[in-house]
């Protein structure tokens, strides 16, 4: 179920990427898409009624299963990368705004 939410978010992001030319909106769409991807990844590692994959002294003795920890680690990294890219994108967008006075790519046209 949560997978579909992730896919839906990805699709929404893609829709945004295809339709808008506003730079801030593009970055938002990108973020939505990344968010969707992250949710999707988390869902891969999801195990119903699983525990957090941390070995502690007081682990229950009955049969249990860990949630797959790897996707979580991936997501962590992906979020960091996403953050970096977004920040960079926003800086670039702001600089473009300073130069051209608009956030709309179609108004700027091609920079030759």
């Amino acid at each position: 179920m949560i997978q579909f939410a992730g896919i839906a978010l990805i699709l929404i992001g893609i829709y945004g990427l295809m339709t808008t030319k506003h730079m801030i909106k593009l970055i938002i769409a990108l973020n939505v898409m990344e968010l969707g991807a992250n949710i999707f990844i988390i869902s891969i590692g999801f195990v119903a009624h699983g525990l957090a994959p941390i070995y502690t002294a007081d682990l229950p003795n009955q049969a249990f299963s860990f949630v797959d920890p790897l996707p979580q680690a991936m997501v962590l990294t992906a979020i960091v990368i996403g953050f970096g890219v977004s920040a960079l994108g926003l800086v670039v967008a702001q600089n473009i705004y300073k130069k051209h006075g608009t956030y709309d790519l179609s108004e700027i046209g091609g920079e030759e």
Partner: protein
Amino acid sequence: MMGSIIWLIALPLLAAFVSVVAQTYQYGLLVVTLLMNLLVLFAAPQGLTIIGGYEPPFGISLLFDQYALIALLLIQVLLLLIIVLARPLAKNYTPVILVMLAGLNGMLLTNDLFNLFVMIEIVSIAAFILSTANGKLTHTFHYLILATVSGVFFLLGTVLVYAYTGILVVQGLMMRLASLPVALSLIPMMLLIFGMAVELKLVPVSSWAKNIYGQANLLTGPIFAAVLAPAFGFVFGRMMNEVIVLHSLTGYTLLVMAISTFVLGELAAYRQTDLLKTLAFSSIGQSGLAVMMFTLGAPWAGILLLINNALAKSILYGVATGVTAAYGNASMGVLKGVFYHHRLLGVAFSLASLSLVGIPLFLGFFAKVSAVMAIFSTGLIWVPVIILLTAIVEGAYVMRWLLQLWSPAFEGYLASKKELPQKRNVFSAQQILVVGVLAVILFTMGLMPQRFVDALQKTQPAMAQYEMVGQGEQQ
């Protein structure tokens, strides 16, 4: 101590942190790092390096083999020469370049798919920042959006691979994937391919390259065309041989994409009247050709093409951006006959362009011949026809530029004591020396192609062990 390949990643990262602090020694640090990297390359033993003590299916490992050696060597040497060539510009971007170097080395060495994603993203971010040096931020933004979208695709593909196989180790992943049902493995493969397509400049997602390459300066031009492009090419070659299972649908899609990249890139280059734009589209086209070779299971031909293209493009971009900066414009009219004043640059440029086109006596010819011969063995006779027809177009525009740049006037003009256009200062002696060194490397490689091709073919058995699986699927 120096014997470990991990220094290739660690050293540049370390240097990057130091360079932020020690602003005055930045440039020296960069050069020293690259030189030390070279040392490491020769000192480190080949093989699998396991990081943190976890065995491959669980932990990250680095794979250093002949293939990686060639790629790493090419990249360290070219980057070293390029930063010497573009010294004034490189000074301002030292930390970025160092981070990028770490990413590149990691990308080529890593044996873990997710780690590969991370490295690609690091390189991408560094490349975004580097591309701002062109001063055209909209193009950077364009590049940023596309690369990130494809990065997300790559990530999804990685995750799906993990979900289906449970491992992320690159080496041998193909075996596992090939045993999956087609319906399952199709989507991750496709996502991985599209995840790389943007950086590989494949049609239809290569639109960023036109402007990033086409308005490059002395630093970004050579780095993008001669360092980043071959690095991603090598990574793609690794992926094709170790990870990606081609089904008939993805295989033909990839082939068509590669061919159309080659053909359309060269056609677009044919109509350009701006030198840098021409080179940009030429890079796109060449990238398509290399991808085609990897797709068709002829990696060593692909490697040869990548090496040739990297060396040639470093010279071409170096000279072209330098001349453009000096004369103010890259258009045909402005640059007419400029090599009359800059003979050595002209000779280097000519060597590089002749090699790029694949004219005999130069490396590019042997690359092209290997490519065509390799394709013959797949039985697709029409592909060489396309390659050779496109090579005519390629030769046509390269020669047009060469002729334009060399001839300031017609026969008898000098005898009539007329004035030629003013000479302007393009490069210092040191920079000319660098271009000369690049040209000499390219030329020497062309002189002993047999030895060179043999060395490349030695890398073949090590990496093509799963080749047959992919081919079986593809046909």
